[in-house]
């Protein structure tokens, strides 16, 4: 059985729940099973938000992450709140701004927010950049499926922007592997 | 022998009704059927909805599709009927407590939506069914069984409330001024949107007795002596209007009706 448990975390408004949905949809395009859940507070913006995705070749019973294989965190608050229970061989992907010294896992620190805000100039694509990084590092879904899933979900007229964000994220992920 | 109009529109096998001798509700209920008769509506396409209370028992006696609902909620049920089947003429019969206390929220929102419902509030200034407790329209300092020392609440003026909330046809008459009442209901039913007619009723059993208002006849006389038609009021001095209340058509300003507006949304997707 091939099963992966992924937790995406950050601050409300960064689009991580949508990122979780896209990742799950990409897995379905790849012909796998996927379940996506979320937990959030009363804040529509700010606070700590988390989306979880389980991808498996078999039926998924319990839908929440218990043994996290991949943990993504874009803010310190979400790292501190949700960065527990990562599997020993699990990996952590954080934004540059997150101090991740407390963790014992393999850590990739990537300038995800900076790329979205300053390089691309569109803070709203931070989730898509993050997905690019995550998939390049883990190959959890195919790159083609990810792109298809992104384009299915993003607003009309933003396809090129999001493709660019995905590519830049993917390249950063490839680079971080080295 | 019931009159022709009663024979035609009442479920005569359900009569006599439960109201006390001298109650104004029977006059008002009959006025509704006269207005319907004048308009010549298809009686199979009329739905009369009521809440809980003395007035709300009227639905049981009227020969239409009738819906006797929960306390205060008649307008919410009626909204479902009207939106689901806009073909139907929907009439709500409610009381002062039913409409403006427990149902106050539904009342202002039905007005606001301007949904095609004609509401007749039978206002007897008291909770009659439960035995004479003060209501939101009990005049200040009057007595009820729950206001033994006089009511200190300020009373609602239901037509003013309805007009402010967005009802597009608003009027008031009394059980005494039956012809005016009939014409207001008729005009209310002609209005596509939300119409509110307050029908001042009388409760000799509880409100009258508690407040020494005399017999049923005395109470009707009081209506006759204290009601001033809005058309006459403008020519009267404030002194002359002291202690009086207004009757007549207060508002008639049609606006697009809710269910027709909704139909326009459906029409965007479903072409005939």
């Amino acid at each position, binding site marked *: 059985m091939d099963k992966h448990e992924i937790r995406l975390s950050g601050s409300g408004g960064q689009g991580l729940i949508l990122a979780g949905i896209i990742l799950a*949809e990409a897995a379905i395009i790849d012909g796998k099973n996927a*379940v*996506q859940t979320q937990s959030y507070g009363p804040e529509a913006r700010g606070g700590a938000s988390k989306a979880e995705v389980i991808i498996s070749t078999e039926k998924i019973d319990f839908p929440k992450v218990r043994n996290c294989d991949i943990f993504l965190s874009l803010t310190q608050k979400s790292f501190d709140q949700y960065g527990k229970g990562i599997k020993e061989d699990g990996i952590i992907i954080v934004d540059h701004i997150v101090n991740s010294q407390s963790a014992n896992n393999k850590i990739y620190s990537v300038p995800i927010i900076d790329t979205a805000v300053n390089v691309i100039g569109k803070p709203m694509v931070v989730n898509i950049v993050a997905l690019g990084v995550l998939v390049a590092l883990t190959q959890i879904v195919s790159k083609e499926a990810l792109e298809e899933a992104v384009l299915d979900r993003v607003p009309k007229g933003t396809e090129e922007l999001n493709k660019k964000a995905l590519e830049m994220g993917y390249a950063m992920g490839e680079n971080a592997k080295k | 022998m019931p009159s022709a109009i009663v024979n035609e529109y009442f479920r005569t096998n359900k009569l006599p009704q439960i109201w006390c001798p001298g109650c104004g509700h029977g006059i008002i209920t009959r006025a509704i059927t006269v207005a319907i008769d004048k308009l010549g509506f298809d009686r199979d396409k009329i739905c009369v909805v009521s809440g809980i209370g003395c007035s709300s028992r009227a639905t049981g006696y009227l020969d239409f599709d009738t*819906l006797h609902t929960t306390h205060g909620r008649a307008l919410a049920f009626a909204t479902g009927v009207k939106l689901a089947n806009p073909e*139907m003429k929907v009439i709500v019969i409610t009381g002062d407590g039913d409409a403006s206390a427990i149902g106050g929220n*539904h009342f202002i929102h039905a007005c606001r939506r301007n949904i095609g419902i004609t509401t007749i509030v039978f206002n007897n200034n008291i909770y009659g069914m439960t035995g004479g407790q003060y209501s939101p329209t009990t005049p200040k300092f009057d007595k009820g069984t729950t206001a033994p020392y006089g009511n200190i609440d300020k009373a609602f003026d239901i037509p003013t409330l309805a007009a402010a909330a967005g009802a597009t046809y608003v009027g008031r008459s009394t059980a005494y001024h039956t012809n005016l009442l009939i014409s207001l209901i008729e005009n209310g039913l002609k209005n596509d949107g939300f119409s509110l007619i307050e029908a001042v009723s009388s409760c000799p059993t509880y409100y009258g007795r508690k407040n020494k208002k005399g017999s049923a006849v005395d109470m009707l006389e009081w209506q006759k002596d204290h009601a001033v038609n809005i058309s006459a009021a403008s020519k009267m001095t404030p002194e002359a209007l002291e202690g009086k209340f207004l009757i007549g058509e207060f508002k008639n300003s049609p606006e697009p009706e809710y269910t027709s507006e909704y139909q326009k949304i459906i029409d965007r997707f479903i072409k005939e």
Partner: protein
Amino acid sequence: MKRKAQLMQGNEACVEGAIAAGMRFFAGYPITPSTEIAEISAEKLPCVGGKFIQMEDEIASMAAIIGASLTGLKSMTATSGPGFSLKQENLGYASISEVPCVVVNVQRGGPSTGLPTSPAQGEIMQARWGTHGDHPVIALTPSSVKETFELTIRAFNLAEKYRMPVILLMDEVIGHMRERVELPEISELEIANRKRPGVSKDAYKPYKADEDLIPPMANFGEGYRYHVTGLVHDETGFPSNSSSVADKLVRRLMDKIETHKDDIIQWEEQNTEDADIVIVSIGGVSRASDTAMKMLRAKGLKVGTFRPITVWPFPEKRLQELAERVKTFVVAEMNLGQMVLEVERIIKDKAEIKRVNKVNGEAVYPEEITAVIEEVL
């Protein structure tokens, strides 16, 4: 032919199922975690000629769907904890006046405002006894997105068939979860519609039941001109103070469901044939039970699961049969012990009963169930 596999949320599947079942009227009021059901209904209903309205509160929403159903439209409302409390009075109205409708409650943490964004199962007993007076209840509890689709359709079918409100008792885990589903084609679905009068308009008695205890139903606006009331009424629909009329009506309402239990009750069991221990759970908790069962089976323990799909009426007979053989039942739920009361009532002292309860706003995890079972052994 199957529709394409897709990722779908529980609340979305509820609306898909409702529209497939023929829902053409929805009245609601925003409340987490059920709001998506209103939002998606608002978007989709006009596209099929249906109506959506956002009412001023949950009481009004419940009232509006009853009014709409009386005109012949299949109607639904959806809410969560506080809103479910507000709907109770008119739920009782729909019961006594026998108006088909579907009420969805996506359970969140309570009491009161509680934990609006967190899962719970605190309304199992409220679903049964929330409205005053004796009344029958059908409550269905889906444990997956696909089953939410299926049970929403079933809720409409049962509501129409038995002329009563049917509760779809979801929880936040299922309502907000998204998973891969392949929905069936509409043409493959079985859709039930209310029984229509077979007599002339003059002879029609709206509450005269057939032998199956279910009265045929005319729609308002068709010329039957009948009366509907929340008061105790006789076959004609008019109020009555007669003690024999009251007795007959309330007993018929209860018997209407009691005599059709076999048609209504559904459950699912896994690995119960040889089980010493059976985990009993519904909705989102069943997902943890399945995982827990597999974990324990992998260790060689004889564990099975029992999942009521109709939590009301409860699958009593089957549980009794299982209790003849099973040594321990572990009842897991996101409350401090509600369904377990029913299990205890049914099993009495025929088997040991253990509880797993959680009210901290988190889902029950498989390890919390296995821990209790390993304690038993």
